């Protein structure tokens, strides 16, 4: 009896010691399962990092430094009036289902995003596209109804899908079919998604890996230990506290880049007294952004205006914004002049995420110094989204991703009636500038327009931009060739080895 048990134990221990396969696989751990994989419907970070650049590609591609490079289009010409874009496509591109990609697929993909029934969140990125002409199987012309400077970087986010999916709103959510270096293999709910090397990828010799496994690991401590001991290879988007801890681990390398994403304090401009621009300015004066960064973000971030400092061509330095110098007396004076009774009772809706919770506590204390009486409403994500969408808040603290072109962010957020203008902000001057910035194709002209927009929004806009974080990705040292992209995408997996 005893002997049988011991020999059984020996067998188990022997089995545990046996190594599994030698194929090169990268295991990426993220916190939760994506809701879906349709590149034209997803919005969440955990869907985007799986799908974009790995399974799907666009006509153009945003590089790690945010410049626009060729993607499925190897080159393009723009007409002198800025209305016609002619794209020359790569000729050797195959979809994962084996069919060849041509101009008809590109056309169908753009139409799919524009289709009202799809309700694609990307629709505004291609809304100026008036007509699409297929010249031949490898040449396609997009005609715009007005010049739209951001079109090239916008197209990087429009994945090209096979034309047969043009009117199908469901199939691609579960089984994606793209042209990217990795082909979808399987999806185990609550466990992982497996992508395999796509043998017919357009560039010979790529990707270098055999497969990519994306594991869903809800517990942060588990992800951390799993990375340290080699169970997981990459943890994208680690929070500042975890990044600090992992930095000390000799097996782990932390890649950091200034991020496009930012934390913000949003204000409902239909609510008293936030409808008053001077009160919004007073709030900015009361905020001490450096204190927020030190106190809530462990120093991992920089203060910024409406555009990320990573967008070097566009962003104004915070020195340009008078309200960014913390000044309690001046803030009180502004509130006094507006003859608003203090204390001003307001509620902040808090995104259920650690950094947002920490930030809102610091903000609460900072604003209360200036005659506010702030209460914090910690809600669960479902409720948060609902209140946000219905503009049912005084203020909220949240985090947003960013966009490479100012128009992509400003137009939908600050234009009267914009699709994410939940603040109900409406300002004639800003509307006019945003329309002009969208139409102009001269970079210098756009720069001067967006300078004015930033100047105005920084202090009086419905959003106080708090801090641009550092995007940290923790990578096991066995992984070679990883490169971090400011967009947060895992675009370097194509050339990574292990």
């Amino acid at each position, binding site marked *: 009896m005893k002997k049988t048990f011991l020999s059984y134990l020996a067998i*188990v221990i022997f*089995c*545990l010691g*046996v190594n*599994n396969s030698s194929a090169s696989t990268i295991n990426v751990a993220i916190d*939760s*399962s994506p*809701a*879906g994989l349709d590149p034209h*419907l997803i*919005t*969440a970070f955990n869907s985007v990092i799986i799908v974009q650049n790995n399974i799907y590609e666009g006509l153009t591609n945003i590089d790690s430094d945010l410049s626009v490079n060729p993607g499925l289009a190897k080159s393009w010409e723009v007409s002198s009036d800025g209305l016609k874009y002619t794209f020359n496509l790569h000729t050797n591109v195959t979809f994962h289902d084996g069919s060849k990609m041509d101009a008809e697929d590109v056309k169908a993909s753009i139409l799919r995003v524009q289709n*009202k*029934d799809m*309700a*694609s*969140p990307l*629709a*505004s990125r291609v809304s100026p596209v008036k007509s699409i002409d297929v010249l031949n199987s490898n040449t396609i012309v997009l005609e715009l109804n007005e010049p739209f400077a951001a079109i090239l970087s916008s197209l990087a986010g429009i994945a090209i899908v096979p034309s047969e999916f043009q009117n199908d709103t*469901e199939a691609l*959510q*579960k089984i994606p079919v793209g042209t990217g270096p990795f082909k979808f293999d399987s999806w*185990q*709910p*609550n*466990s*992982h998604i497996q992508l395999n090397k796509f043998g017919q990828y357009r560039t010979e010799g790529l990707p270098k890996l055999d497969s990519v496994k994306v*594991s*869903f*690991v*809800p*517990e942060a*401590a*588990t992800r951390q*230990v*799993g990375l*340290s*001991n080699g*169970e*997981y290879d990459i943890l994208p988007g680690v929070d500042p506290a975890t990044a600090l801890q992992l930095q000390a681990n000799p097996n782990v390398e932390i890649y950091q880049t200034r991020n496009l994403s930012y934390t913000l304090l949003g204000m409902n401009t239909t609510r008293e007294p936030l409808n008053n621009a001077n009160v919004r300015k007073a709030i900015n004066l009361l905020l001490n952004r450096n204190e927020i960064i030190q106190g809530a973000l462990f120093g991992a971030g920089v203060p910024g205006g409406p555009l990320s400092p990573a967008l070097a061509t566009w962003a104004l330095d915070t020195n340009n914004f008078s309200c960014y110098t913390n000044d309690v007396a001046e803030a009180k004076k502004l509130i006094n002049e507006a003859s608003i009774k203090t204390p001003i009772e307001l509620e902040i809706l808090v995104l259920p995420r650690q950094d947002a919770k920490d930030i809102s506590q610091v903000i609460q204390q900072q604003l209360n110094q200036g005659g506010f009486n702030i209460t914090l409403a910690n809600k*669960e*994500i*479902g*409720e948060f*989204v*609902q209140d946000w*969408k219905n503009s049912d808040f005084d203020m909220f603290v949240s985090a947003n991703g960013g966009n490479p072109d100012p128009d992509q962010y400003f137009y*939908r957020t600050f234009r009267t009636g914009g*699709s*994410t203008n939940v603040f109900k902000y409406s300002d004639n001057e800003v509307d006019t500038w945003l329309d002009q910035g969208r139409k102009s194709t001269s970079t210098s002209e756009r720069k001067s327009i967006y300078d004015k927009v930033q100047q105005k929004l920084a202090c009086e806009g419905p959003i106080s931009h708090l801090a641009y974080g550092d995007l940290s990705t923790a990578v096991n040292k066995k992984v070679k060739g990883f490169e971090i992209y400011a967009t947060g995408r895992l675009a370097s997996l194509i050339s990574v080895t292990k």
Partner: protein
Amino acid sequence: MNFKYLFNRIFDLSIVLIGVSIIVFSMIRVIPGDAVAIMLGANTEITQEGMNELRSRLGLDKSILEQYFIWIINIFKGDFGTSIWTGRPVISEIYINAWPTIELTALSVIIGASLSIPIGCFMAISRGSFSEIIIRVAAIAGLTIPSFWLGIVSIFLVAKFYPGFIALGYVPFFESPSENLKRMILPVFTLSLPMIANLSRLVRSAMLDALSQHYIRTAKAKGASQFSVVFKHALRNALIPYITSVGVSVGYLLGGSIVIEQVFAIPGLGRLVLGAISERNYPLLQSSILVMTAAFVLVNFFVDLLYAVIDPRVSKDD
């Protein structure tokens, strides 16, 4: 065993299931947050009409009472509904996620139930000794330490001292038995520890009770060995409360697995349920809770039957 007893048990079982179905159905709908809004996330392109259409396609525009009866009637037709997010039949989602949980629960019950008998017997025999006091303190600690804490701490400790040993996530048993078992060790340890603590204390007191009975004195007097007295005479009588308790433990394990699956990244029913709550995935949540309840009730139903087999007085009295 008589049929009246069986019938009564089945009747109780259906009352419990109906009660649970009503509670789960109404509770998830009382939580604020709209299923359709959460599913669409940050997508602001969708119009109000689009949302209404989606809502009616998912059957969420009907009255709550109507939704309830549609759900119940469909269950009797064998249709447990469709997951709002994945569009897959709920029953297949449950099926996929059930295996890890069944394995986790079964292994924990086996380990917990089998280890607690010798430990409990040892505690009863060596009552008051130094080693018994140590075990008793450890048992109280095992009962009071929350399993999620134990899970995280054991991951950290093992990673610190045996870094090569840690394996997280889940590999199906038939894909690779060694990888599967390797990943089960820590979660099963974490889950079964409170059970061992609880059951061994129970075995100890039941044994002490049994050992002080007259028939034990008689057995000793007729010259039976210590082993035979403890395991043949006392243990058998101490077994009835023990078996009941094992059945109830299955329920605790199913509950505990929600947390443990989260910590160890195991794709089981616990994570399915948790995900369904945050997605307001009504059909998925309702049906998976119902299935889990049914499993728990059934286990206890069989325990009751077993109880009646061991002690025939039970069914007669009922």
